[in-house]
């Protein structure tokens, strides 16, 4: 029989076996969809912009010793921060849901490791604010909680400037001038002018809370100019395009290497000998396997992108031709990778270990897990990233969904070219290995 028909027949056998095991089949299609859902939401939460999506928050315990209008206003403002989850929490009727601790109790909790960050609004807060003295604010913290620490600093600054309508900045300036030895009369003059400016600024920002950032943008230091590609699907963020593309490639690699391992089962189960004794070109076994894997991969990716579209509106209908081209090249590369592993391995265990290792490393370095493509990586990392299959397809998916580029874009063309080049080289090497490992000594 000729190469083509034999390969088709072989692929059909593989596919019917694949579809027969309903559980395995569903798993292999549902798993990527589940993962992409979780990842997409998670990434979305971590990077949520001001558009009000749910968001990961840092926990901050607060106690107000001062109990003045100013301190209460500051405390209340902290509760509105989208970066913070303030404790003790309040019930709807204004009573505390958690125990409200005193400053001393909170300090002990931090020492005990029960609380990571506690803000103490000390006695004399309002007084200090009025007279431009240093504010009695203390953050009692466990320095090990670095990540939340950064968030907390930003949030506390934001709330402080908003609740005092920016007076903290005037106070800071005044303190500096006093420290520098400027006479009180001059300081008072400068303070009056600055306060005037600040009030103007506060008025011009309308009912928006005072924001340190507005100090720059409002005064024309840095003007923000937003441009969204008109074709971009309304909701998609860089990170979601990344998550969908990244998971797609990783799952495809895992799925298809598992499928290609059946090549080893053909050998162990003895059927390879029988196949090789039949009037078919040996290459048709490899080609048939590749075809079956390709079909499985295509279904896998289709399910994945439909789910991605449903959940995140990544915009799969915007440019189906480009999407199709990226999908096909990615599948081709993944199939070639799977065949290469299967042809290289002498036992299924080897194939399993090798493929898991290589796929995890490639996924990590290639941007399947973290949005590496938008960062400027140091040299060795950058080179490593470009050596992965994941990078070339993840960046293509991102260029398509987020940057709304098309097939005519040189970056996409280059990426697809690299994927195809890998496909050719890996398949050729797989065929060569297949010949030596399966034919000569079968």
């Amino acid at each position: 029989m000729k190469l083509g028909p034999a390969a088709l027949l072989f692929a059909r056998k593989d596919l019917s076996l694949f579809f027969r095991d309903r559980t395995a089949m569903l798993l292999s299609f549902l798993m990527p969809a589940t993962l992409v859902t979780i990842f997409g939401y998670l990434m979305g939460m971590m990077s949520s912009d001001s558009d009000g999506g749910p968001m990961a928050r840092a926990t901050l315990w607060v106690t107000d010793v001062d109990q003045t209008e100013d301190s209460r206003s500051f405390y209340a403002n902290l509760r509105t921060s989208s970066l913070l989850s303030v404790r003790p929490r309040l019930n709807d009727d204004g009573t505390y849901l958690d125990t409200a601790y005193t400053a001393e109790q909170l300090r002990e909790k931090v020492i005990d490791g029960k609380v990571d960050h506690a803000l103490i609004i000390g006695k004399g807060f309002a007084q200090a604010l009025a007279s431009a003295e240093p504010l009695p604010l203390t953050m009692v913290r466990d320095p090990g909680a670095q990540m939340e620490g950064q968030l907390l600093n930003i949030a506390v600054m934001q709330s402080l400037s908003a609740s005092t309508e920016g007076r903290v900045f005037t106070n800071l300036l005044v303190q500096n001038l006093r420290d520098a030895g400027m006479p009180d009369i001059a300081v008072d003059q400068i303070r009056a002018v600055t306060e005037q400016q600040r009030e103007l600024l506060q008025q011009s920002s309308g009912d928006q809370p005072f924001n340190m950032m507005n100090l720059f943008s409002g005064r024309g230091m840095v003007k923000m100019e937003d441009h969204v590609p008109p074709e971009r699907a309304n909701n998609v963020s860089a990170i979601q395009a990344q998550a969908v593309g990244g998971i797609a490639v990783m799952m495809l690699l895992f799925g298809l290497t598992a499928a290609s391992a059946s090549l080893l089962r053909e050998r162990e189960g003895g059927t390879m000998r029988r196949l090789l004794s039949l009037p078919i070109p040996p290459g048709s076994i490899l080609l048939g396997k590749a075809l079956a894997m390709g079909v499985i991969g295509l279904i896998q990716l289709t399910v994945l992108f439909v789910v991605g579209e449903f959940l995140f509106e990544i915009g799969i209908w915007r440019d189906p031709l480009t999407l199709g081209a990226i999908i096909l090249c990615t599948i081709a590369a993944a199939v070639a990778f799977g065949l290469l592993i299967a042809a290289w391995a002498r036992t299924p265990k080897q194939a399993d270990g090798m493929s898991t290792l290589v796929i995890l490393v490639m996924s990590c370095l290639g941007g399947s897990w973290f949005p590496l493509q938008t960062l400027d990586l140091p040299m060795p990392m950058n080179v490593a990233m470009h050596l992965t299959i994941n990078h070339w397809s993840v960046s293509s998916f991102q260029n398509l969904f987020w940057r709304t580029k098309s097939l005519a874009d040189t970056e996409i063309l280059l990426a697809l070219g690299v994927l195809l080049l890998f496909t050719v080289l890996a398949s050729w090497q797989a065929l060569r290995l297949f010949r030596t490992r399966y034919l000569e000594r079968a």
Partner: protein
Amino acid sequence: MTAAPPATALLEVHNLSLFYGERCAVQDLSFQVRRGECFGLLGPNGAGKSSTLGCLAGLLNTWQGELQFGGDAIRPADDVSLRGKIGLVPQDLALYEDMTAVENLIFFARMAGLSKAAAKEGADRGLELAGLTDRAKDRVDSFSGGMKRRLNLAVGDVHEPPLLLLDEPTVGVDPQSRNHIFETLESLSKSGRTLIYTTHYMEEVERLCDRILIMNEGVALGCGTHAELATSIDQPNATLEEVFLNMTGRSLRDS
């Protein structure tokens, strides 16, 4: 050795040698198989029987020497269409455990180039040969060892190749089934098919084979009918067991 008249030889093997790395599995082996005969390859474990069949079936391609099929020099591993004329029943089971008996038969028949209809026919014939007609739709992994063996044989013959290589097809098969297989092979032989039958059981070659090649450690010790072999050691009434003992200095069973 008795040289067969070339006109009736379907397969000629001249000075076949095969190495696995340093190890010599087959050394300078020569024999001829006539059209329509059942030719026995008799030898103990490790004699090189499977290796010889592997060269003939196209599984191995590193051999030296010369093979001729119907008078033409051949290299089965490089010759796709030739492999359609030489069928193999491998010594180890070669079936898809998660497919049914009939699916296995049809898949391999189609891979061997049979049309859908012909494959269906071949499968029915194979099921009968294997005595598995009533289990046709059961998965292979639900079969007993002997049933798998019978199916293994049937699959190898599903496309009815002119030359069928059988590598110890009756290992683990119960006496009734074995009898059934023998009868089938005898009828195949009568219908003009050529068989090469590999075994280390004397009774089997005695019952089935027209001529026998005795080999040990990769080397041919003698070739001919039972009578010719007995005569060659000057004991015309010797059993095959005695012939083997005489040729190797040890009994076939304990080697």
